[in-house]
């Protein structure tokens, strides 16, 4: 049996272990949250190195992408470099392939996305594949990076402006302590009430809200009017949270195992262990071919019932 472990800076309340079969092979997939404790995450990674088949890094990004530019997140890189033997991934490779594909499926096969659909991406630089695919298919996309990361009520409306602003900000912001720009640990269990009130209009005005679930959750107001949420890494409690808020449909980009969808880092770690090549040699086509073989489909969950 292959073992894949996700070490996350997120809450340990979301820890989980499942057994699954991929292409005839048994996998034990588990998640270990460190409640935002960076040193604990480093220690866990060092302990797991060489003892498991692949490691995913959760609750943190190692790389942020905008078009062809890649920005390394200092804290993420530090965690990644702590692992010397076992393949270690942050999900960015899969986000750039699977999440583009999910946008295509939602447009071509379900009709949930079409030209002009109003989409709020709570953050796009951590899910650039999804953001670009939505933009390319003609959705009316609001990139909420400045709103939800910096508290600046400035919706970015074009890919060009996103690229320009990201070019100014990301080289430096990626060097800051990660907890300053993303909710880690206990912050993942609470909402930022001031910003929920202040930025509610961006949620209410959208038909589809996409991006990282912890960000979506942290700022989601009450009285949502039947929006679609496009994300991943949801637990049964998260689904109940969305239902109570008035969300109509949940689409997770990764499949469901035992009642929850794992993060892209976990699924990428599974794929990397199957492909068997060094991470840096794996191409988008490698992922796409394997996703095809595995028949990965987005999970679409009706929350109205």
């Amino acid at each position, binding site marked *: 049996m292959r073992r894949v472990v996700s070490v996350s800076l997120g809450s340990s309340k979301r820890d989980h272990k499942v057994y699954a079969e991929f292409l005839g092979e048994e996998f034990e997939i588990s998640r270990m949250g460190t409640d935002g404790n960076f040193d604990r995450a480093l220690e866990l990674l060092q302990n797991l190195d060489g003892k498991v088949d692949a490691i995913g890094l959760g609750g943190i990004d190692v790389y942020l992408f905008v078009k062809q530019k890649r920005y390394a997140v200092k804290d993420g890189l530090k965690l990644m470099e702590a692992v010397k033997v076992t393949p270690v991934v942050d999900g960015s490779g899969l986000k750039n392939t699977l999440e583009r594909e999910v946008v295509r499926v939602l447009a071509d096969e379900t009709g949930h996305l079409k030209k002009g659909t109003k989409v709020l991406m709570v953050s796009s630089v951590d899910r650039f594949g999804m953001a670009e695919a939505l933009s390319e298919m003609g959705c009316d996309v609001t990139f909420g990076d400045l709103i939800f990361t*910096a*508290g*600046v009520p*400035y919706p970015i409306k074009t890919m060009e402006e996103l690229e320009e602003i990201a*070019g100014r900000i990301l*080289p*430096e*912001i990626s*060097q*800051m302590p990660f907890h300053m720009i993303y909710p880690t640990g206990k912050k993942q269990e609470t909402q930022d009430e001031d910003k929920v009130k202040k930025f509610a209009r961006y949620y209410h005005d959208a038909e589809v809200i996409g991006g990282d679930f912890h960000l979506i959750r942290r700022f989601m107001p009450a009285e949502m009017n039947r929006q679609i949420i496009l994300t991943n890494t949801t637990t049964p409690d998260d689904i109940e949270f969305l239902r109570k808020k008035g969300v109509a449909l949940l689409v997770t980009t990764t499949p469901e195992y035992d009642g929850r969808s794992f993060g892209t880092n976990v699924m990428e770690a599974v794929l990397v262990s199957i492909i068997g090549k060094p991470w840096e040699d794996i191409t988008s086509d490698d992922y796409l071919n394997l996703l095809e073989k595995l028949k990965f489909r987005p999970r679409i969950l009706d929350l109205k019932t």
Partner: protein
Amino acid sequence: MATHEEITDSLKVFTDNYNKNERLKIMNRDWDRVVVVKATDVESRHTMTLKDGVVSLKEGASDNPDLTVISDSETLADIFYGDITPTEPYNNGTLRVMGSEDDLIRLDFISLLIWGE
């Protein structure tokens, strides 16, 4: 070591560049804040006031600022002239900012939108 006058000049450059940037003024219309800039090695205090998206500068400290930016004179002048970004001095402890983390991040973003690559 920079002088008080050099810090004043750097802050003037910063505020001028900010106020010339219409996008920044739109971004910060909701963010009324008082920011005190304090040098540790020379007698130098300034107050930047953001109101309705516009920044004004005066010499001397204000009571009850929302943010207080503290560093040595050279680092302050370098930051506000745009020669260095605040990230490295903040990460290595040369630059201290007293105030809420949300305000600190926002100030960092403003500085990067003025001086970023």
